[in-house]
């Protein structure tokens, strides 16, 4: 099969993924902490409370997402380079390493559990993605028309 030239090469795609994940986390953090800050503030101070919660917490959520995305992309590229193959196992192995790397300060049990959980989660995502692709690729059934009556000879 020919190479896919629509994709960025590996060193660039890491930066791309880091930025995308940061933006996703920052936007999600704005919504999440905006609602939380709004609900937890007294009447009359609700919009101010929402704004200050967004300013304080949304960049943190964005940063956490960004670190996850950047590390995942880095490990995905590394696994691709080692295996020289592109298949769903790359994401599962990369997820294992990301979960472990992010939890390394919590001790060996935390690292082990986090790595296994992250790998399983990514395996489930991959499986669901493949299933959806297969469902969408089902051939559409042609409509069945009644057979034309045989013309009788005159």
């Amino acid at each position, binding site marked *: *099969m020919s*190479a*896919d030239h*629509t*994709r*960025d*090469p*590996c*060193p660039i*795609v*890491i930066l*791309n*993924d880091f930025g*995308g*994940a940061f933006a996703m986390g920052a936007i999600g953090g704005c919504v999440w902490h905006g609602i939380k800050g709004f609900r937890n503030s007294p009447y009359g101070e609700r919009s101010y409370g929402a704004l200050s919660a967004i300013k304080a917490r949304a960049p943190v959520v964005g940063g956490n997402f960004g670190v996850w*995305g950047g590390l*995942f*992309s*880095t490990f*995905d*590229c590394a696994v*691709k*380079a080692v295996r*020289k*193959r*592109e*298949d*769903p196992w790359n*994401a599962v192995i*990369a997820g294992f390493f990301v979960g472990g790397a992010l939890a*390394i*300060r*919590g*001790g*060996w*049990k*935390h690292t082990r559990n986090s790595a296994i959980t992250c790998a399983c989660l*990514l395996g489930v*995502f*991959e499986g669901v*993605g*493949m299933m959806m*692709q297969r469902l969408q690729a089902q051939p559409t059934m042609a409509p069945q028309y009644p057979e034309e009556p045989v013309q009788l000879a005159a």
Partner: protein
Amino acid sequence: MSNILSVFNPPPSRDLSDAELGKACLPCTAIQSFVAMAGGAYLNSPNQFKDKAGKIDFVKHPLWWQRSVRGAGIVLFGFGAYRAGEVIQILLEDRFE
């Protein structure tokens, strides 16, 4: 498409070509070298086992675990240094070709 999006919309399985793997690719090798050396230095540092008071909890971080992590850090740092050598090799090849 990014690596994260390809989790949700997986491309068909295939073997990667030499062009995609980036043989003798200077930016790829330089970034690999930098990331491996930075990761190795991080794994080698004792700070990641210390808590906020600056003490190491030996139940959470037993000696075998600390040594394994530091060993992995040394291997990663060595790999980064090897790749740094390859960066210099590529630069020299470009210069004398």
